[in-house]
């Protein structure tokens, strides 16, 4: 349980509709509720079902929290898509963790080689210039068929200060509550994430 000394912790999530970006925030909100840690979760989906930009902001540990995380203030950024990750750079705080799941969701113009697409190095440079700690995860880090968002959730809990605020076991339980039918698969994705070090 929260002893009232929980440090505020801000998480900025970005990705593309359909990647489960909002789900990460929902699960963490549920875990925070169970630990009696105040939370404000603010999803912005625009037109999620059409593969558009999705972002969500989760502010943990503040009694009254404005929905928007100030620039240079996020303790953790989770980007589920490389190019979309660039949109989150302005929010990372000095020394904050920036996790990117290096998935490339190419818009048609990029697919047709009519428009450029950023390299991972470019994103990494930007995050470093902003003072963030860059962690890149790759589709080959995870066996096929397992949920990448659950994997990334595990990675975040083990590699950042988030794991000191929210209990990983509780988060796992919330994942299970949400998809009882996929419990085994998700437990595996979560376990691989928790055990993941680079």
């Amino acid at each position, binding site marked *: 349980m929260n002893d009232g000394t929980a440090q505020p912790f801000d998480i900025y999530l970005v990705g593309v509709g359909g990647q489960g970006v909002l789900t990460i925030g929902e699960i963490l909100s549920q875990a925070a509720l169970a630990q009696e840690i105040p939370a404000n979760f603010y999803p912005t989906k625009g037109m999620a079902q059409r593969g558009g930009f999705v972002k969500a902001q989760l502010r943990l540990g503040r009694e009254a929290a404005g929905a928007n995380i100030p*620039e240079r203030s996020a303790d953790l950024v989770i980007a589920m898509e490389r190019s979309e990750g660039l949109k989150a750079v302005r929010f990372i705080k000095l020394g904050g963790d920036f996790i990117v799941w290096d998935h490339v969701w190419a*818009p048609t113009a990029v697919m047709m080689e009519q428009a450029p697409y950023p390299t991972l190095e470019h994103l990494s440079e930007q995050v470093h210039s902003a003072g963030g700690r860059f962690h890149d995860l790759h589709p080959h880090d995870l066996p096929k068929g397992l949920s990448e968002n659950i994997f990334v959730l595990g990675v975040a809990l083990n590699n950042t200060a988030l794991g000191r605020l929210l209990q990983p076991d509780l988060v796992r339980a919330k994942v299970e509550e949400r998809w009882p039918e996929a419990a085994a698969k998700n437990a595996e994705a979560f376990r691989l994430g928790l055990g993941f070090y680079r």
Partner: protein
Amino acid sequence: MQRKIVSGNEALALGALRAGVKVVAGYPGTPSSEAVAFLLAKKPEGVHVEWSANEKVALEIAAGAAWAGQRSLTTMKMSGLNVAYDSLISIAYSGVNGGMVVYVADDPGVSAGMAEQDSRGFALMADLPMLEPATPAETYRLSQAAFELSQRTGSPVFLRLVTAVAHSHAALEVEEDPPPPPELPILLERDIQRYTKAGAAICMAQHRDLIARLEKAEEVIGEMGLNQLTLAQEAGGLGIIACGATAVYLEEGFERLAKLGVSPESLSVLRLSSVHPLPRQEVARLFAHCSALLVLEELEPLVERELIVEARRLGYAGRIVGKLDGPFSRIGEYGLREVVEGVAAAVGLSLPKDLLRGLAAEGQAAARPITVCAGCPHRGTYLALNRAIRLLKFKKDEVMVTGDIGCTILGMNPPFHTVWNEVSMGASLGIAQGYLAAGLKTPVIATIGDSTFFHAGLPALINAVQHQAPLTLIILDNGWTAMTGMQVNPGTAEAFQREGWQRLDLAALVPAMGVQQFFQVDPYDLKTTTETMVQAIALPGVKVILARRECSIQSKRRGLRFRRVRVLEEKCTLCKLCITTTGCPALSIGEKAVVIDPAVCVGCSLCAQVCPAKAIEKEEIG
């Protein structure tokens, strides 16, 4: 009471239930939609909940119920308030018997599209009280308070939320299933002095009453303690007036300011929940206590202007820092940065240049123009229309295709580039008639969704019929109000209407409106749809094409698949035409051939119909 995570919209709905609301009517519009959607799904006992045909109708239903002595709620996004305002001003003049709350959602920062309209202006214009919460928890309280205020003053009361509050989710104590609304007698009051606008004397008397109710509201708001004033120990410091959502950034701002050497104890704060009327007593106390004031309000400087007027009236000479005199913009949302920079500007503190300003890296991100979903019926309609224009030997830049609100507007984007403009619900028809009246000789085509057609397209089509404006109207009938999250509309299939509701079939309605040239097509059938369009566009008079096929998000949810499609690798020449013409998100480029993602594809077969090499095979199911 139960502690659970609710959104601002749900908090508003639950607050209304707790306040004994009996009638709820709204029209979908982001970010307001979840309030009614939540109640429709919840089916609270004894409460009438509906999606109405448009916001004006919704507001009138709420008003009728409130005249009959019951508590009512109407919900809409800011654009909807423009539609409803005509009735609202009349109802404001008459006042209400049961408490009536008008929920309007504004969108500073435009996360949902349309305008950065500041609906607080409507409260000023209509002399109606308006409350505005900063968090979901406050929304729950203010939603209940708004009913009390309305009941005690006899005035409809606005409740305004911005997107960041409406879509925020937080854990709070709520009563999930409050008792059904109390059985109140249905008032039947015949009083033309009050309920009609017959003559100058009546209207001016009502106007006087309206102003009196607003003054009463100021008093009641004071009694209810809705605004919080905290004066600094020492006089002579800065006073901050924080409106609505901005208030919640103050506490965080205090932390940062303390680090910069500004002591929070030196600041006086008025947290304004009633944006209209301005609580003049509290303002006078701030004037008496503070040497300068900082106004935190998103969008228009409305409170700022009122403060300047009050300052003049009361002879206050301190500086009022905001948008007219100060660092703030009328564009976009406020956050912590505005709090810190505003206080710094007001106390003359210089800040490190990059404080709260991050590294802008998004310029390098790939552009991601939104397109319609895999299997979207609108794709077929726009592909066919582009073909029809070509077959009629026109260039695309010669044929005006007016657009309307909804997923249908995605016809403006690649790969279609079909639609030219977007104004407001139903405007595709009026704008099209304007081009014709201006003398345009090339074809004029209007495109509109089913919900939008019911909402505001009907009178515009009637106008076209009466004046025989030779336009071609395409109604993209996907059976749902899709873009706002799949609400039921009058044309939604019978199976999805609530028990006791009746569906209106556009295929019967439109011909009955005097449209003599009416066609119906299936947009999954590219050839017939194209041929029909070619035929219709060339005809004189008003032509209407009903392009009917259910939204694929909805059909997919029910597990419907239309055809099995398969790329024949040996035939695919990798010309990529399927991708460039359809833009379907299920298609991508593989090593030897185009690849179809079976998890995304719904089998509309449009890709197969455009493939010149016949490399995509389609097979009927069932």
